């Protein structure tokens, strides 16, 4: 009791506390203000955006920007495409990662150390953009959505964290299931995976956000503009004013400012919707799995 009081009592300490609260409140606001400005701008009129330097609430509320975007076939198709690719991709990526993590969690598996060393090696050395591009090309994946999913299917960090998590689950559960006659596949499906839901949910969301946000893969692998994902369209729309005409791939006149604001919001909303679920789990999930093993 007396010690905790002592901690608060010095005058310099109190001054620091007040200052710290002020600084961190400022930092928290800085993190979110740019986004709130864009959100407000997406509901503002063209006139207001170009005349008011900064606002968090539009004087005149309008949904014209959203209406204009949603009436564009190109945009709606890109949005639908990205949703589908993200769902399928997350499923494939998480599935492959968990399937590989489970055997690697068995300390007695022959060849385990070799495979783990090779996985770690890919974390510090990669052949680079061009050789990977050529492999994707040789496999006939160019201009297919698989090119957005398969080349990044297993993230080595995620693999190792999920493996570590599996490893620290109590062995007794698995052994009793085996005594009841379950094979490895059944053990994984009925015992291990149900126990790992929070960790798997965390990595599912990380994979999903990764695919949704990916710009490099569609840039490299999709030359057919009708297959473009949302991030590519977003780039096309918002780069229009800041770049010179020769950098634009289309001859369409630059879009109005309001449309740019609204496109940013639409490209961000799904990630922000996933964020509360992510936040609930990521710190815990990362910590459980990162225990050395």
């Amino acid at each position: 009791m007396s010690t905790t009081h002592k901690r608060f009592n010095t005058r310099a300490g109190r001054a620091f506390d007040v200052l710290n609260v002020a600084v961190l409140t400022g930092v928290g606001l800085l993190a979110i203000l740019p986004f709130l400005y864009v959100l407000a701008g997406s509901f503002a009129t063209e006139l207001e955006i170009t005349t008011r330097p900064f606002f968090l609430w539009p004087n005149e509320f309008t949904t014209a920007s959203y209406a204009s975007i949603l009436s564009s076939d190109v945009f709606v198709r890109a949005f639908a495409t990205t949703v589908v690719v993200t769902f399928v991709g997350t499923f494939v990526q998480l599935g492959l990662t968990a399937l590989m993590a489970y055997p690697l969690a068995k300390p007695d598996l022959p060849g385990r150390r070799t495979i783990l060393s090779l996985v770690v090696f890919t974390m510090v050395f990669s052949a680079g953009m061009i050789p990977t591009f050529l492999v994707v090309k040789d496999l006939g994946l160019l201009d297919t959505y698989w090119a957005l999913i398969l080349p990044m299917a297993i993230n080595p960090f995620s693999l190792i964290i999920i493996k570590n998590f599996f490893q620290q689950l109590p062995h007794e559960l698995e052994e009793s299931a085996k005594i009841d006659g379950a094979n490895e596949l059944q053990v994984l499906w009925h015992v291990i995976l149900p126990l790992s839901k929070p960790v798997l949910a965390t990595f599912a969301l990380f994979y999903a956000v990764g695919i949704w946000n990916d710009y490099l893969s569609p840039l490299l692998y999709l030359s057919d503009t009708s297959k473009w994902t949302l991030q590519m369209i977003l780039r096309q729309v918002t780069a229009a004013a800041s770049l010179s005409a020769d950098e634009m791939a289309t001859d369409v006149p630059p879009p109005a400012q309001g449309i740019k604001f609204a496109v940013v919001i639409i490209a961000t909303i799904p990630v922000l919707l996933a964020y509360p679920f992510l936040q609930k789990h990521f710190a815990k999930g990362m910590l459980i799995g990162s225990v050395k093993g």
Partner: protein
Amino acid sequence: MTTALEADPPRVRKPARRRLRQDVVRYRWLFLLMLPGVVYFALFRFWPMYGARIAFKNYIPFLGIDGSEWVGFAHFQAFLSNPDFPRLLVNTLVIAALSLFIAFPLTIVLALLLNELRLQILKRTVQTLVYIPHFLSWTVVVSITALLFAIDTGPLWTFFAGLFGTDANMLADPDWFRPLVLMQMVWKDTGWGTIIFLAALAGVDQEQYEAAIIDGAGRWQRVWNITIPSILPTIVVLLILHTGQILNTGFEQIYLMSNSLNRTVADVFDTYVYFAGIEQGAYSYSTAVGLFKALVGLVLIFGTNWLAKRFNQQGIF
């Protein structure tokens, strides 16, 4: 004697082979489960490494990799003696330095400030807010930058134009490229970077603080003698990983921020590989550039790891 020796080897070899067969049978389910993952690593991580030998050839897709002419280190020499090389190196290193000497220390400072915050509800709120930008794509971050710095209308353009008395188009001006890139880096990942430090700080034994208070240690002394030493191993590990990434500037951010007007400062190794390889089709040359970058990264990561161990810190290997 001799016959006994000759008879020996088969007896040794046979059980080994049988053991392998037994292993395969015994672990067949596990091997089967792992198979797709192993195929993935072979196909998308290791096959490109084998394909990277085109860096030593004049690769012509029509002839195939094996049919293309062997040129040894010609592409590496061409790259190192290219007049663009010094500029690329400087641009890359400047961005790496901004990240290492400004963004990284800011992460530590933010983590320490959050750790000192006693108001738990404010701490959690600030954490929730500062993690958000990490989940936005670079496309979104660059787009928001373009809106905030839009000439004549953007709020931050107005602010900085007033502050510095300039009317430059900051999005295209080479002088503004690095400050903008730094601002983006700090905004997007400083908050996220604190997670690992806060995790390390959560593990510190609170009794140490209480003992220090009884001994009369002030707040600053406690931070300096307890808090900072407890996150030092984490700092060292992150520094090692960071050093290995020095030549990797993050392709998406730089590519999206570069345009025809700021190329002099915006061109880095990552974007150079893209322009030379994908846009101009110089596959062998750009692979050599990528390989050079990866090898330097590998040397740096092992080098700093060795150094860390020399100074009695735990390395990562």
